[in-house]
């Protein structure tokens, strides 16, 4: 009996989670990078909390973006090398759907932990406690959008031997709107403003990513398999 799409997606997710926990170092690397960047700023910039608070949205979001670029390298690379993607393409299941499942796990393993650990870094940057929930929510939503958009570039650079630099160059222009609205939401949260407008825009980008990015990633991966 042919496996249904939900069953197939569940297996892809369980498998990726299991693999990730067998190799935790790969998982922790982007997170460590983010924490290091965010904690070094207070040490080098100024000890004054009011001035750090001004820099906080920028520091948090640039850190999150660079860390997600670091993590994107692992999204498809290994699966392409060991033939897993090829088997996905030949499984009779929709490649788009399988890659969407993979991208969701990728966010669960990189974007979500980063968002959840952001308060630790944010305290050091003078972000007030009442803004923490908003900071976490914005980073989680923005991270999801970043993973989706990054999946396209990760698929496109499969064929390149050293795809790392190319991957960053391809992703950065697409990631700028997420960065702008995300930092705006964080800024508003810190100053006690209304965060809904930038959050809606982030949500819109994420929805656009959900609908279009897996299709584009699947097309890119197919080319990469040739």
């Amino acid at each position, binding site marked *: *009996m*042919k*496996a249904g799409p939900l*069953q*197939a997606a569940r*297996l*892809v997710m*369980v*498998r990726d989670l*299991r*693999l990730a926990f*067998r*190799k935790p170092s790969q998982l922790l690397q982007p997170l460590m990078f983010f924490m290091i960047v965010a904690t070094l700023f207070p040490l080098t910039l100024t000890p004054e909390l009011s001035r750090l608070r001004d820099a906080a949205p920028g520091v948090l979001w640039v850190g999150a973006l660079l860390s997600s670029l670091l993590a994107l390298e692992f999204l498809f690379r290994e699966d392409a090398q*060991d*033939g*897993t993607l*090829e*088997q*996905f*393409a*030949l*499984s*009779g*299941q*929709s490649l788009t759907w*399988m890659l969407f499942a993979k991208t969701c796990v990728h966010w669960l393993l990189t974007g979500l932990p980063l968002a959840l650990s952001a308060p630790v870094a944010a305290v050091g940057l003078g972000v007030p406690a009442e803004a923490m929930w908003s900071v976490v929510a914005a980073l989680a939503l923005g991270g999801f959008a970043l993973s989706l958009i990054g999946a396209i570039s990760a698929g496109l650079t499969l064929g390149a031997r050293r795809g790392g630099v190319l991957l960053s160059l391809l992703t950065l222009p697409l990631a700028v709107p997420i960065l702008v609205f995300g930092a705006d939401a964080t800024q508003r949260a810190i100053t006690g403003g209304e965060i809904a407008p930038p959050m809606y825009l982030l949500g819109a980008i994420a929805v656009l990513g959900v609908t279009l990015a897996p299709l584009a990633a699947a097309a890119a991966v197919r080319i990469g*398999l*040739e």
Partner: protein
Amino acid sequence: MLNVSGLHLWRGDRHVLRNVSFTVDAGQCLLLTGRNGAGKTTLLRAVAGLLDPEQGEVSWRGTAARKSRGEFHAELAYLGHDAPLKGDLTGRENLRYSIGIRRAVAANEIHAALERTGAQPFADRPVRTLSAGQRRRVALAGVLLTGAVLWLLDEPTTNLDSDGKRLVASLIEQQLAAGGIVVAAVHQDLDLGSGSVVNLELAAA
């Protein structure tokens, strides 16, 4: 059932496949031979739909494979040069996930397939600790488990001992007897005792 007609394929500026045509029916085995670089792997990948030919068509059960890719792939098992296994998972886990995305598979089915290919003794070790021949045995169990009608095998006996080579031959015979189709790229003869075997020699480009 599997019909390939007038296939032309270029890789860069090399004309690798020149007008390749063949038909394989249920219970038949097609052995692709030819020197290194003659295009055996390319042909197998083109039949599987991983490569788009510049000209010509692959059709399955009378319809173009390109048009009904999902149905075609559900009936196809492809085993390339390297076994598509995750080094950090055990053989059994690998099969559970890779077969599970295709069809519902029970643990005892996996057990039986591993037993059949002699991979049972090392099925619970991480695949990265296995030898190339052992990995191939796990991968062959995977091909069995797909339940696919059409097998595309690229050098199925690579890295296998003489016992393993006999195993591949008997697996193919079994598949043919069940009305399946096997297309295999081979360097040495497989010594298939029964079943109808067709040879296709690809000329070097």
